[in-house]
């Protein structure tokens, strides 16, 4: 991931309360290979059935409130990561999804009002450090919550294991 936490890509917009069964359905839980898991990203979100065919590396997912509610499955983050989605920008995240994303070093950003200001296909520039999103297509700039504190440190380290690396090596 970009060390500056700045990403540029096309937007995919989905609604409120997208739950983990929509992001990665329970019927695929037996899978453990991330490449296989990635084939089922967002399959149960109405209107997003062809997402995995059309997504391009660097694309940005824009969502309404409470994205990722439901199950604790980390698959929901992995399946987006392995489709080379560069970031998820949401009105708000369900907590387990948020935490799993931090622990996997997957950039996420909360920006109030984002879902109303972006349409699928818009070109966005996301600066997770500054907490800002620039909709280049519409010429709109939105401000959210910048990454900070421990979550930022973990994300910068590439995730929880990256962060714990020194500690774990010192024990050996």
């Amino acid at each position: 991931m970009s060390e500056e936490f700045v990403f540029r890509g096309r937007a995919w917009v989905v609604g409120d309360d997208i739950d983990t069964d929509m992001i990665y359905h329970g019927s695929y839980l037996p899978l453990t290979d991330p490449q296989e898991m990635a084939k089922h990203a967002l399959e149960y979100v109405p209107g997003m059935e062809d997402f995995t065919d059309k997504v391009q590396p660097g694309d940005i997912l824009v969502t309404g409130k409470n994205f990722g509610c439901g199950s604790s499955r980390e698959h929901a983050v992995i399946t987006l990561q392995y489709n080379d989605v560069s970031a998820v920008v949401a009105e708000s995240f369900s907590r387990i999804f948020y935490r799993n994303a931090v622990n996997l070093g997957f950039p996420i950003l909360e920006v109030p009002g984002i879902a109303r200001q972006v349409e699928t296909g818009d070109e966005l520039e996301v600066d997770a450090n500054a907490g800002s999103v620039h909709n280049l297509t519409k010429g709109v700039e939105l401000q959210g919550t910048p990454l900070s504190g421990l979550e930022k440190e973990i994300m910068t380290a590439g995730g929880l294991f990256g962060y714990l690396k020194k500690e774990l090596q010192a024990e050996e």
Partner: protein
Amino acid sequence: MSGKTVIEKILSDHSGEDARAGDRVWADLDLAVVRDFGGPNVVLEYEKQLADKPVWDPQKIAMTFDYQAPAKVVQVANNQRICREFAAKHGIPHVFDVNAGIGQHVLLEHGMVLPGSVIIGTDSHMNLLGAVGSFSTGMGTTDVAAGWATGRLWFRVPETIKITFQGEYGYPASAKDLALFLLSQIDTSKTIYKAMEFYGQPIQALTLAGRLTLDSMVTEMEGKIGFIVPDEQILGWIGERAGKPVEAVVSDADASYWEEWEFNIDGLEPLIACPDRPDNVRPVGEVAGTPVDEVFIGSCTNGRLEDLQVAADVLERMGGKVAPHVRLIVTPATTEVAMEAVEAGLYETFIKAGAMVTNQGCSLCTIGHHGVLAEGDILVSTGNRNFRGKLGKGSLAYLTGPAVAAATAVKGEISLPE
């Protein structure tokens, strides 16, 4: 400095810091649990990151196979084997295999869940253990793998909402209706990642099963955990199983709450969550008459003896037969519950009525179990989620308590119990 909430006390105790809402702390874990869902991913991640490194404490790791029990898909059988082999290699004694039941309930029955403990697991409903004052929470693969290695994890100390109930209600309403009522009243954008503490006479009157029911739906409220201070009877029950006396963690009188809410639930009526959201709650009467194809009684929300007893009583009172076109699936939460239900004669009632009583486990809360739905099927479930297509694309699900579920099975349409 003001006093502390329950979560601030538990995280202070486990981090050695003065943990206050909003702080990030590293807290010691008392138990780190995986299921056959998530578990194999944890094992693979652990071995990818750390190879053969011994786990932090084999006694504080548990495995509970409740997702697909026993396995019906070879990939799941393989996944369960991956977990068993890891447990054998690392000397992890607490493996509750496919015959044990729903993880949280099994751990509770085995005296492994103490008030004031910090427990993580690959189950978003781990937090139902707040019903006995434990801070238990669902986590992803990376968290649990890191927890197995280090015995500690980072937490953002949640703010707490103090929720007090007043009033009285009785049968056919139950703890499930209390949970559904709360879901219908709250704005989940306010409850995201909040701890809750539940108080008031209606809470004190809840049995252990009722407390577990209410707390199991805190996840659907987007809450982090719902604490209920265990009473003497519940403390005695846990202490007996843990083999040592246990104490409750109680918030300070001057604890600082994010908000305090009060609800009057006088005369609470049976409620039902309509498709596709747990908070799409209506009085059962408003949707009575809706034809159904399948009814599920069980889950970590309503799978205890008390729930099965209520359902069996309703079945018997209403003629003892499930409607011919309805599939009724009953699943006890654990082996202990199953045995109690056998002894109470409930299996006979269910089987004579035409129900299928399946082995203990999560059953129809996930798509991993027999009984999945066809396109167009309508399910009435005592579970906790009714998201779109969860049990089969194009199917619909309603959530309610065991009395309404049983009455619905008899009538073949959503019904209040007679």
